[in-house]
């Protein structure tokens, strides 16, 4: 990702005013929310769009001829269009609503891959994946007699692109890679992987759960065949996600779930499938949350994703500098902020991440602890768990300072307790 000259920085104080939860107290302190890679907080605009839907035009979509149904359908499809423009997808039909990133990834594993991967074929993924982009491929490999190949991490926390070139071969059917590691913060050069995959006739599926909320993402420029992400990590509600697919590929894919809305014509003997994207949206969809996802996209678009990325780059650089001065703490992932997102994972030489997490919670600081749904990656770093601070549009340098002070206080506490 090339960083341009920064435009006006985000007005963080004004942004914070839109997030009611940031005013609550935890254990007597103002909340310092640094668990954004797990889920983001929601602005009033998103919360209000849910209330509006349920109070004013709650109705089923694509069915009724009455006013409420028409309004709900229009808002639901509008939201799809907003997501389409947000990631520069070629058409609204290429945006499929799912429950979350995991469901989007599984959809591809159970449809495209089920139909196209055979015994002896290879699936290539990376050492930096979330469990949701490893386990579906392990299971597919078992079912099909295919082989899973893993591109490793370099010593500086980057993806080994030389190894990628070796592993992506004529036997490769699909490359499944994260755009940004939820543990290391590493941003992977998806365009390079896509080119390598296409050269051998394979497709590429991108886990965009950590990238789409934080940086400008253009699926056509990346030339990815599929991109999966969740609304709840980008100011939207839980329970809704997106699968983008190139229309010609989606067109040729069999459906996954069967039921209402996804059919064209049904007899007692047979059925034919509806057009895209409805072929993949069986049953009454998550209407309210789709509409609220549109509101989240509006919010981010108004800020400008270039500015969001700039803000996070600045905070990450600031945090990495501060972490350098801490005793006993080892930061995972790249130390330079280029192609690195706003995730700072770390382990302590002698204090387990849960003990750190509990201590920070006493100070009102929310971080993630544990294996981050990336057990193989955590273990490859010779540790069993890590702590992670992750930033978003409403976080400030003062909050990074609060975290650093908290870590110092925890260090003093555990030192006095004799477990350092």
């Amino acid at each position, binding site marked *: 990702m090339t960083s341009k000259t920064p435009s006006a920085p985000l007005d963080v104080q004004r942004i914070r005013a839109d997030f009611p939860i940031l005013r609550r107290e935890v254990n007597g302190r103002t909340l310092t929310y640094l668990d954004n890679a797990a889920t983001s907080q929601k602005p009033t605009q998103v919360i209000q769009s849910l209330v509006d839907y349920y109070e004013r035009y709650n109705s089923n979509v694509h069915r009724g001829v009455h006013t409420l149904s028409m309004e709900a359908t229009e808002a639901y499809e509008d939201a799809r269009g907003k997501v389409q423009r947000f990631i520069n997808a070629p058409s609204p039909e290429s945006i499929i609503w799912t429950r979350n990133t995991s469901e989007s990834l599984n959809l591809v594993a159970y449809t495209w891959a089920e139909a196209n991967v055979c015994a002896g074929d290879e699936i290539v993924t990376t050492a930096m994946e979330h469990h949701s982009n490893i386990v579906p491929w392990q299971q597919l490999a078992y079912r099909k007699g295919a082989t899973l190949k893993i591109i490793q991490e370099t010593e500086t926390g980057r993806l080994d692109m030389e190894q990628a070139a070796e592993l992506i071969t004529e036997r490769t059917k699909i490359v499944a890679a994260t755009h940004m590691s939820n543990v290391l913060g590493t941003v992977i050069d998806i365009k390079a992987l896509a080119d390598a995959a296409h050269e051998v006739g394979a497709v590429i599926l991108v886990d965009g759960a950590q990238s789409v909320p934080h940086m400008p993402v253009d699926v056509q420029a990346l030339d990815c065949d599929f991109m999966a992400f969740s609304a709840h990590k980008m100011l939207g509600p839980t329970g809704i996600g997106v699968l983008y697919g190139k229309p010609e590929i989606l067109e040729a894919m069999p459906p996954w779930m069967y039921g209402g809305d996804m059919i064209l014509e049904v007899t007692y003997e047979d059925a034919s499938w509806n057009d895209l994207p409805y072929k993949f949206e069986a049953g009454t969809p998550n209407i309210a949350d789709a509409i609220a996802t549109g509101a989240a996209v509006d919010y981010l678009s108004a800020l400008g994703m270039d500015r969001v990325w700039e803000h996070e780059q600045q905070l990450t650089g600031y945090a990495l500098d501060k972490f350098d001065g801490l005793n006993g703490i080892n930061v995972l992932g790249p130390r330079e902020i280029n192609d690195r997102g706003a995730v700072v994972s770390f382990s302590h030489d002698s204090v387990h991440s849960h003990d750190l997490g509990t201590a920070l919670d*006493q100070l009102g600081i929310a971080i993630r602890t544990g294996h981050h749904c990336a057990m193989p990656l955590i273990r490859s770093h010779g540790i069993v768990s890590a702590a992670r601070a992750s930033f978003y549009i409403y976080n400030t340098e003062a909050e990074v300072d609060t975290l650093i002070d908290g870590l110092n206080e925890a260090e003093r506490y555990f030192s006095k307790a004799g477990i350092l």
Partner: protein
Amino acid sequence: MTQGLGDLDELYKEVLLDHYRNPRNTDLLDDPESEVDAVNPFCGDEIHMQLGMVEDKLSAISVTGQGCSISQATGSLLTEIVEGKTSDEARALRELFRGLMMGEELSEEQLDDLEDSVALQGVRRFPVRIKCALLSWSALIDALDKVAPTK
């Protein structure tokens, strides 16, 4: 109201810290009657437990592992109270310990039965950490079940 880390003293009692720093009964058994690995999938805490049985008595126990202070200290504390007990007595102690974690009122006598493990009482004020404290007790039940499954 602001407070520092003082409340953590409820959690990190000296007995617990002592067992975390110097875990007891970590030597592996030569010929264990039963052996289990328990993992907390939520956080990655790991416990490896071995039991030696003579007739129905726990003649020896070994606990090793890696994880947070609560999970590891509980494992060490557990070894001290179950050694020499019958499997039924050990199962009963697990019920007592679970009751302690869930905030049930225990009698003086029951608290005495738990010996130093009573120091873990403070964990219940930190609900997400209760599962750390229960891990090795679940491992004990699994290990006992391998010897003689409950009906």
